[in-house]
């Protein structure tokens, strides 16, 4: 046999083998005829059934948790081509282009998932159709969150990331590797826009500071802000200063507890680069925290609780489990820099719960907050649930009748934020397990009805099965943050900063204080 003949035969064999391999490995479309009807919906994970989804969300890939050797899912709506996915594994990965097209054509319509499962040599089983709804309103395109491990007082890697919700792209805004492993948190945006951002930094090498990003410029303010809220004008930002103490539970499922030994609010004025406070929210007999502005800039809402202990050295303090915050507000005239009188919106005495994390919807209609049994850190309390207050009704009647949203679970819900169109809420939930916080979205209609929340989709639907990250403080923003990590890192490492001085003494950390190596910075999630 000549050499050429041998080569030719080898090539043919290789091509044939490749063809056979491709045929066996790649899923082929098959006609599904004559299936057995199973009168229940298929168990899928994540649970993307009976939800309202935004028309610009990435495909909701999921796993079919039914025994089988072959799977088929048909996704369809009123208009457009059906999407059919065949798979030998229970992982269903929806093609992005077809998904986007289907959503685009069917805003306001229902979307159906037909799930078929086949065992080897058996008939296909067809489960009840899963029905979802595509909302008219889009969700903001980007989600910014901090990704950390659920640690306690030590940390290694952490970062603030942004995720494009239309696909699965995640990019880094800043991580602590840029400045030698410190801490970063409390990323805050002005009116869901990345053009004005604040981000808190703590570093044993470079000190504590606040990064102020305005469009593509960034500066460092020589003090760290706690929980922060931008005034809608973008001219000032209000923040809390908290003296936080971490303690432990002997037997609760949540190992950690957090109390504020002391706290107050202050505000940073961008033009004058000064920090001020007011007696309205820096009362030494009270703990003030979680500021948030109304979208018209007329009111500052925040949480306030009485200090219940005289001995500040015993930790945890006596009555730490009796601390309950009221929801209050104070009016503000930005042009005169004048504060009005304090007004209680909702009292802890009435609810017998502590009221935390108020966030007003951008249209000014709703106030979303959480309540739990006691304390100041709802993410550590399984009892923390989301509540909604109709501010229009409140303004009319002067009475707040909060409604507990039925989207809550028996685990902590907290760290909620609004989309810029006030239709979508993003929040952190531990409903999947007691340790790892995940991000969920829920649609809120005009009547204030919240729809079943759904988990932030991932390209690999089994991602969360072995995800050791906690997704903390999800914030919806309309556009991506443009400033790079290297730019921010350089500013942190640099010596230039805006020096500020807080005109009050309390449990205030000094600006630029470099905590000792053994001092622990708390408030992890």
């Amino acid at each position, binding site marked *: 046999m000549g050499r050429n003949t041998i080569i030719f035969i080898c090539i043919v064999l290789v091509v044939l083998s490749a063809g056979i391999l491709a045929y066996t490995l790649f899923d082929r479309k098959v006609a599904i005829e004559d299936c057995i009807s199973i009168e229940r919906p298929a168990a899928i994970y994540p649970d993307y059934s009976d939800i309202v989804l935004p028309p610009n969300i990435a495909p909701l890939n999921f796993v079919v948790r039914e025994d089988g050797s072959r799977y088929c899912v048909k996704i369809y709506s009123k208009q457009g081509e059906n999407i059919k996915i065949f798979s030998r594994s229970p992982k269903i990965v929806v093609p992005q282009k077809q998904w986007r097209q289907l959503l685009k054509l069917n805003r306001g319509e229902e979307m159906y998932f037909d799930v078929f499962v086949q065992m080897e040599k058996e008939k296909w089983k067809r489960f009840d159709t899963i029905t979802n709804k595509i909302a008219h309103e889009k969700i903001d395109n980007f989600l910014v969150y901090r990704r950390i*491990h*659920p*640690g*306690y*007082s*030590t*940390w*290694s890697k952490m970062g603030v990331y942004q995720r494009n919700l239309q696909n699965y792209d995640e990019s*880094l805004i800043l991580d602590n*590797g*840029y400045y*030698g*492993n410190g801490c970063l948190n409390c990323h805050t945006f002005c009116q869901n826009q990345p053009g004005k951002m604040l981000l808190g930094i703590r570093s044993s090498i470079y000190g504590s500071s606040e990064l102020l990003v305005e469009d593509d410029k960034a500066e460092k303010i020589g003090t760290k802000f706690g929980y922060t809220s931008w005034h809608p004008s973008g001219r000032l930002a209000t923040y809390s200063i908290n003296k936080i*103490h971490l*303690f*432990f*539970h*002997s*037997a*609760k*499922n949540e*190992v*950690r*507890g957090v109390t504020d030994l002391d706290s107050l609010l202050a505000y940073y004025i961008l033009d004058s680069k000064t920090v001020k406070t007011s007696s309205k929210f820096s009362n030494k007999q009270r703990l003030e925290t979680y500021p948030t502005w109304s979208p018209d800039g007329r009111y500052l809402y925040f949480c306030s609780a009485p200090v219940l202990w005289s001995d500040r050295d015993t*930790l*945890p303090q006596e009555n*730490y*489990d009796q601390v309950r915050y009221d929801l209050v507000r104070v009016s503000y005239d930005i042009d005169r820099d004048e504060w009005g009188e304090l007004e209680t919106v909702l009292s802890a005495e009435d609810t017998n719960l502590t009221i935390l994390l108020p966030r007003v919807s951008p249209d000014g209609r709703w106030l979303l907050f959480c309540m739990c049994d006691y304390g100041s850190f709802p993410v550590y309390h399984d009892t923390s649930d989301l509540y909604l207050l109709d501010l229009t009704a409140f303004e009319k009647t002067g009475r707040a009748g909060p409604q507990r949203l039925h989207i809550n679970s028996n685990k902590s819900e907290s760290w909620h934020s609004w989309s810029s169109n006030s239709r979508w809420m993003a929040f952190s939930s531990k409903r*999947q*397990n*007691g*340790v*790892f916080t995940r991000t969920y979205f829920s649609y809120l209609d005009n009547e204030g009805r919240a729809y079943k929340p759904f988990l932030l989709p991932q390209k*690999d639907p089994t*991602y*969360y*099965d*072995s*995800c*050791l990250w906690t997704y903390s403080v999800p914030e919806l923003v309309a556009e991506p943050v443009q400033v*790079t*990590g*290297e730019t921010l*890192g*350089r500013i942190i490492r640099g010596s230039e900063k805006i020096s500020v001085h807080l005109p009050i003494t309390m449990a205030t950390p000094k600006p630029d204080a470099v905590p000792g190596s053994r001092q622990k910075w708390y408030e992890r999630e």
Partner: protein
Amino acid sequence: MVPKNSKIEVRKWVYGRDIGGFIRTSIFYILFYLYLWLVVDLRLIYHGAGEIIDFPVFLRGWPFFSEFISRPGGMVEYTAAFLSQLFYIGWIGALVATLQAWLICVCVDYFLKAVNYPRLCWLRFIPPILLLIVYTQYTYHFVTVMALLVTLLFICLFPGIIKKSSQLDRFRVIFFLVLSVILYYLAGGAYLLFALLFAIYELLLRGRWWIFLLYLLSAIVIPYVVGVMVCGVSVIDAFSDLSPFSWKILYYEASRKMIKGVYLMYLMLPMTLLIVGLWRIFLKVAAKRKSAREGDAKLVTKSYKPWTKIFSWYSRNNGLKWFVESLILYGIAVGAVLLSYDIEKKTLFLVDYYAYDRKWTHVLQTARQHSDSFPVMYAVNRALYHTHKLNLDMFSYPQHSDTLFLTIKESRFDYWKKFDFYIDIGLMNIAQNDLTECFEVFGARPMILKRLALVNMVKGDIDSARIYLGVLSKTLFDADWANKYLELLNADPNLATDDRIQHLRSLMLKTDYGFSAFDIEDILSQLLQENRQNRMAFEYTMAWYMMTRQLDKFVRNLDRLDDFGYIRLPRLYEEAVLVQLYRARKPINLFGRQLTSESKQRFEMFSQTYKRYGTNKKAAVKELAKGFGDTYLFYYIYDFSGMKKWAETQ
């Protein structure tokens, strides 16, 4: 013509090779391997003992791999992470480490020959000797050494390509840049060694300053462009990742240990070239200034004659040369090992390793050799408990009240060493706290994931446990354990058939309260309140009272002996009772038990011996230690224990 494969041809081939050098090197590496395998035992480095904080995590699957490919140095880091896992199996880990050392040696040898300095080839043994020291000290720098190895391979590749033909030499700069980009992507900041080395070579040995400048410039431009602009890493990481100068190594004291050895490995070749190059320049300058006079040259030749004669004879005597050089090499290696050997450190690692695997007799055997440190004694007490000897033998070892819960100031953050103890005694939340801190410090190491899964299963947080098990199922050696539990959880989420989990559930505290720090006595009391059958809590309570001399509380808890079916008092409890009887002069309720005559006799003899020395406690110590060095009586008087063995050697 001599036919092929004739004896003469073979002889010619044999003498053309340095057979002696080959044998010497082989022996060196065989001993290197055996030492790492049998003496150092790289399984201990894999385990880490809570001392090695930068041992890498490795998980199977694309998601883990994809984290590495998008940044410079990621490929070497991934490969090194995988190879490091092989330390789990002692002999394979030793083989990997030996291969790494050998390859570095080969590369150094090749490079020095390529730059025409074969006489300096003995330098090739410096890196492996340094590695011996690094491993003997139980430190871990495998990743950065791997980056060095890859860089050295490229350092050898470059002259290898150039030398193939003079035409290729014309394109040396292009080759250099191409290799630079590839190397930088593979090995990150270690690439700078490549650029620096060839820059020095070009300047000092070839005199081509413009190429020198270009190479230096590439060392700045390539990391910036590829690292910062393309891959988006920070500028600091772009220039330092994977090198021993990285802040990720220097920031932490634990990872800085023995880093000077790694610096030496990295800087050895550039320093050599620098010295050689400067020496050449010096010689050239010196030669130009000297006037070449024949008489002087003859005189010079005459005055050095004896030495050159000796040297010439030595050079011709291959056998002697081989012997002397081998002696020097092995002598330096052995000396380095002996000087860096730290029995205390090894004991710490061994004890921790055995304790994690619950090989309690091994813990006790190892601790016997060297039991002075608190962490070792802490592990010994756990081993004594688990082998039912805590109330019999604890004072045969050095004891201190801080060894029970490892509460000394230096061990305040030794979470690694404590979590298993907390799990065993029923303090699940404290265990979870410590494990979570360990997770942050050491990463998703399998030993931590395993315990986190266990704790969550005990606490009933099955969903969280599944996540830890999910990650664990992607590790190389613990996947089976994880999969077994994942299957069990599917079949029986309550884990009713798992005895250990059910037992731990029965022990754990169920009454919740907030605390910042715990009081030992308090927490032991709570554990016993939660479950009277918590034997560990009971024995530790009694040990605590004995060590802190609270014998009134000790005797008050004697009724608990009934909960554990003690027919008679353990020896050390008898001694404590006798001391209390002597002190309080009041009868003590032993709940139907009697003191043995042996204990009474021992107490009598101890008292008599002690009284003979009057008030001079110090004078009595030797005699008392000999007869009673392992008793509570001795500890009660002297506040230290474990003296019997010492006394026997006096």
